[in-house]
């Protein structure tokens, strides 16, 4: 069974935000919600790195563990989905998430959070709505996965730094890159998300 993961090659990412734009457009993400973002570390200094980050679809997802209404769950492919019908907008998944993936619309007074929204690996919602239907799209965004396609962010990446697909395949691709060019800062977030890392010692 394929286990879906994301890998962002920080040495190739040029902070062009094509992944961000692709995600926002494909999923009609409302203003203020940022499913994917690019973070630049050491901006302007030697060793500047840009990393594209959304939900990593963790093993033993901490968001799923802390949810008070158990609305977050993993699928067979390792994708972490959630039910917007059950979500109460408490915000705990954001506190638990090491990557800041959960997003909330502001719906009321104070910091009142609406239903949580996050990267779905372009796999729709996995809920009661028919896969690929208009209802599912309105709630969760596009369902490319049901058509056998990979997330659009990785497909649109201008430098092929953001890789998506089966964990073993993309880890292999990344390793080969690192061997060929002689350097690699590692698979950012892999140890925290999947409790395993890609060995990039040259």
């Amino acid at each position, binding site marked *: 069974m394929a286990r879906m993961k994301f890998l962002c090659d920080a*040495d190739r990412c040029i902070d062009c*935000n094509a992944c961000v734009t692709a995600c926002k457009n494909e999923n009609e993400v409302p203003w*203020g919600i*940022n499913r994917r*973002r*690019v*973070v*630049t*570390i*050491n*901006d302007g200094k*030697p*060793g500047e*790195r840009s*990393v594209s*980050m959304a939900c990593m679809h963790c093993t033993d997802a*901490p968001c799923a*563990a*802390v*949810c*008070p*209404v*158990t*609305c977050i769950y993993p699928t067979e492919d390792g994708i972490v989905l959630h039910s917007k*019908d*059950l*979500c*109460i*907008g*408490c*915000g*705990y998944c954001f*506190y*638990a*998430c*090491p*990557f*800041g993936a959960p997003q909330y619309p502001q719906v009321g007074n*104070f*910091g*009142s*959070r609406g239903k949580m929204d996050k990267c779905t690996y372009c796999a729709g919602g996995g809920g009661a709505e028919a896969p690929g239907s208009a209802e599912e799209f309105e709630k969760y965004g596009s369902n490319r996965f049901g058509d056998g396609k990979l997330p659009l962010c990785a497909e649109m990446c201008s430098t092929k730094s953001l890789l998506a697909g089966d964990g073993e395949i993309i880890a292999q691709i990344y390793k080969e890159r690192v061997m060929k*060019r*002689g*350097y*690699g*800062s*590692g698979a*950012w*977030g892999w*140890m*925290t998300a999947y409790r395993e*890392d890609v060995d990039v010692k*040259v």
Partner: protein
Amino acid sequence: MRFPAAIRFATFVLMLVGIVLSAPAIAQKLGPDGAPNPTASVIDQQTLLKQVPRVEGRIDIPDTKAAVLIQPAGRTWDYFHEVLLHWGGAAVILGMIVILGAALLVMGRLRITAGRSGQKILRFKAFERFSHWLTAVSFVVLGLTGLNITFGKILLLPLIGPDAFSSVSEAAKYVHNFTSFAFVAGLILIAVIFFRDNLFEKVDADWLKQGGGFIKSRHAPAGRFNLGEKLVYWLSLAAGVAISVSGFLLLFPFFGTDIADMQLAQVIHAVVAVLFIALILGHIYIGTLGMEGAFEAMGTGEVDLNWAKEHHDRWLTQQLAGEDRQAHPHPSATAAE
């Protein structure tokens, strides 16, 4: 050699020396294929995470908390909330219920030894009772809705199913958020109204030495509030402040706080809440089941004279002396100490 030529020659030699000396340094910055190695002067992700608690960078969007790339503390907070808080909270709250049950079985209800006299004296005025009940009812509502966040999915979800449980939990979230203001208002009222009578006095040490009223053969003297009540006051005040401040931060997430601050606020809120609930369970016990004649103090405001004599004799004496002075304004014999 002519002067300009000498200068050109010297510059050339210096350049050669410079290149030769810096050759090893340049060589380090080239990878095995001869291309520059951009990671030569930087540390890798694992080392970075050992040095700093979380990896932060620069972000283009207005959402500043998105600048945090990886905060591994999220998994630690998950462990606190799902493991430590569940077991610790259950132990503290259930443990308290067990202790109170044991107290009821072993000691039974503390009776008024002399029996009811049938005469009453005013202990708490209407405004004092209002402040107490405002705080008390808010506390119970906040406690139940708060416990639902932690224990609801274990206790209630299996009973009513996920859809009903989500509806209940969503309503509970809003009830919790809005009732908190009533609780804070009540807490401030209680803090101010009962401040003076809760300051520690010498008689509190005597009360403790005489067994605090739990040893039937001894008489424990007390003012308006005994040491036990004073401790409840001060502990409730401290817990109330801690829970209000942390709760306020949780109510306005990321208004001046970052992810670590929010996690800390939630930890404080949860731990203090559990201890506060245990304290108030004891308070409720002694004010209802545990002691005959106690509830009416807050219920109607008036208490039996014999009850007051047994549990708050100093206060009773002061009250009667005051009433006597009001009834007979000229100096006459007052009740003896």
